[in-house]
């Protein structure tokens, strides 16, 4: 277990280096002028000033090895983003990542709680109205795009009922709608996974054994069956957590949430190279972290799976 964790942590720098290199290559291959931010004509000297400011005057290897990773992302000197001239890249990430984490954690908890409950209930009450309802809701959650759900919830709760604010960030009431919207697709997918996993397991011999031994139906379902049915859900949780926690462009745009998802998309259309690198690397770190957590949890839930100890 420890060996697995250590080995995986040692891989992190190498993976990050690869991600960084590929991102730099993709950024370099993207057409468009990263300095063309305004509508006004740029005089040659103004262009040169900007080139110096954003280090386009330097040779590529210096930018690749030093300017971008160290000077701009880590030590944060002198180097505002292209789009936000008054803010540096670490400041932008520092302001938006906590927002995404708060919203993401809330949405993640909702998704897990709702998804598992719905999945277990519909498996236990198979082919009853509860099952049909939960399967139907899950289908809707998966197939309706976020911007439709988001706009619908806004109009319903914000405009017609007037009980929740339209957007913004900073108050508890402002978390509810974006949190629910963000969690719905994940919740729906988890419900389906749980239901399928439960149905698979319920027919197994050890469940019958447990029942025969006189274990109550609730305990059979929640402890014996659920533990094994949970494994496919668990492998989905890693990438889901990384995706939820690093923000969603659509949800952030609809509800005016100042999170990281916006920067992921905006920085690409602005050709804001260091913001692109910053967001991509942050996302990679989260993805690796949650995948590691999932792998560790595997071993904890099912002792037969001991990765790294062949």
């Amino acid at each position: 277990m420890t060996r697995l964790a250590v080995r995986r942590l040692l891989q992190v720098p190498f993976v990050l280096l690869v991600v960084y290199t590929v991102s730099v290559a993709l950024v370099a291959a993207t057409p468009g002028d990263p300095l063309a931010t305004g509508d006004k004509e740029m005089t040659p000297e103004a262009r040169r000033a900007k080139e110096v400011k954003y280090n386009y005057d330097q040779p590529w290897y210096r930018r690749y090895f030093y300017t971008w990773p160290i000077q701009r992302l880590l030590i944060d000197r002198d180097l505002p983003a292209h789009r936000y001239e008054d803010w540096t890249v670490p400041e932008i990430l520092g302001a938006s990542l906590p927002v995404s984490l708060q919203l993401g954690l809330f949405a993640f908890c909702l998704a897990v709680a709702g998804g598992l409950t719905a999945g277990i209930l519909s498996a236990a009450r198979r082919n009853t109205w509860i099952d049909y309802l939960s399967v139907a809701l899950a289908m809707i959650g998966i197939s309706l795009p976020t911007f439709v759900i988001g706009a619908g919830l806004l109009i319903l709760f914000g405009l017609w009922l007037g009980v929740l604010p339209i957007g913004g960030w900073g108050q508890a009431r402002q978390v509810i709608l974006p949190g629910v919207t963000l969690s719905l697709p994940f919740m729906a997918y988890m419900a389906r996974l749980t239901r399928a996993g439960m149905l698979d397991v319920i027919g197994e011999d050890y469940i019958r054994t447990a029942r025969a031994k006189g274990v109550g139906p609730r305990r059979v379902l929640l402890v014996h069956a659920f533990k094994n049915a949970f494994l496919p859900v668990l492998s989905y949780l890693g990438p889901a957590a990384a995706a939820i926690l690093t923000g969603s462009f659509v949800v952030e745009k609809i509800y005016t949430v100042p999170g990281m998802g916006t920067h992921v998309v905006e920085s690409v259309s602005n050709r804001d190279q260091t913001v692109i690198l910053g967001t991509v690397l942050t996302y990679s770190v989260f993805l690796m972290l949650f995948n590691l957590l999932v792998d560790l949890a595997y071993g904890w839930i099912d002792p037969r799976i001991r990765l790294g100890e062949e």
Partner: protein
Amino acid sequence: MVIAVAVALILLGVMVWSAREGRADFVFVNSLEPRTLDPALTSWVDEFRLGRCLFEGLTRLNDTTFRPEPAVASRWDVSDDRRRYTFHLRPEARWSNGDPVTADDFLFAWRRVLDPAVASEYFYQLYPITNARRYYESRSDRDPSNDLPFDRVGARALNDRTLQVDLEFPCPYFLDLTAFLTLSPVHRPTLERWAYREGRVLPTKHLWTRPENLVCNGPFVIERWQFKRRIRLRRNPTYWDAAAIRLRTIEALPIDDANTSLLAYETGAVDLIAAVTPMAARALYAAHRAGGRDDFHPRRYFATYFYRFNCKRPPLNDARVRRALSLTIDRQAICERVLGFGQTPAYCLVPAGSVDEMTREGPDGRSYRYEPGRGLGQDMTPTQRIELARRLLAEAGHPDGRGVRPLELLYNRDQSHHLIAQAVAKMWKDHLGLQIELKQLERNVFSPRVETLDYDIARGNWVGDYMDPMTFLDMFVTDGGHNQTGFANVEYDRLIRQATQEPHPGRRFEILQQAETLLIGRELPIAPIYEYVGYYLLNPRFGGLWPDSQLNLFVHRAFVQPRGVPQTVAGPEPHGSASAGGTLPEAQR
């Protein structure tokens, strides 16, 4: 599962506990987070709206007439040849830290704007000042030995409170320019601490606009700037005219989704929005026309939408082909069927709807009005236009479009640009038999291609920087920075030069009219399509926001309306001169 629910509840609890601030007196939606609050660098309408709350120049625009009026300068003397202005600064003008605003603060600010290394986008607003252009250009090469010293620029402090400015030519709109944000003073010690010292841009330059560092001289100071969440302004007690300011706090929210901002307005969470989706704008416009929604204010806007033709590339280097293309565009159909919220067809470059606001008084006391140039096809019927277009194309050697290669029409990504391009391409195909390839590009790809003349036909627009025809017409002088069509015409250049030197407003307008007629009646490096309209939604509780044709919206002048008084907008139409251009926010570009 239980854990998950518990965590979610705790999170909510933590956020309830987290600090809550009361609603500001006036909350408005600024559709974009400002790039910067530095007055030398701001260039978007949204940034100007905030900048005008924080900084004030020698003059300011009156909030109802939009004519320049005394601000930091309490009065000024103008020499007889209209080329020397002496400004007397009012002693009670102070910075937010209590320091007096001095003539030197202006010189320092202007010197900074004119330094190419600072990369101000509006440096050319200072060009009427003697030698300002030479100063900027001497620094625009890599050779420091030919740099002009700043004392050769025609601006000097006679003492702390007197600023003398010499002009290159009798610029009739100079007092409009001194009200422009780029020319506002900056607090020298603050700038030297963070941003700009001894002609060098400092690495910490982005820190000087932070609330804890920013020293400003406008009606408001910045209380809090939460990145992409809100900017909160507080009334500046040291502002010389603080008695006229009735709001205590203003909040700007960067809501960039137009549907969300409309919902926020409808629920009363915000008091002012200046951008909605085209669909909502059409619905609101229709309701407004039908007598409802008097909180919706459509206004003509000092901006023109046009197509650029690449005058260097065949077959567009032939003026007859350009004329034919322009004649075939059915502007009425585009305004009514594609856009549909009050836009008007444009045959001229200078928005004809704004001429009343460009009236100038001559030395004889008479006021002079600009008569727009004669646009090609302006007085013809649609059939006549098409006939002439087909004849011109045939004269150019392409009857029924024969022998013309497929032409590429570029535009930046936007729903309405796309619809207009489709409509125009169909008109050109149906009437002239031309093949048009539509090409939608991202902004960062689009702009460089237009600048380097790597296009056949490209969408463009211009928002006037100050209320004068010159802001539109001087774009198209040979090699002008915003020309971007390759158009070069000796006669046009001569007319613009002549108008610049002409002190009499009446004669000046006549020369400008000749130039415009040459441009859009004969040569057509561009085909004007429509004149913009601006609009905004304002909570009827508020007064004091007068619409001007540049949609400046002086939010700092807003006040809560006494009950029963009709909204100020119902008052007289604003006349006179307004300045402050600015680039359109993303949604409208």
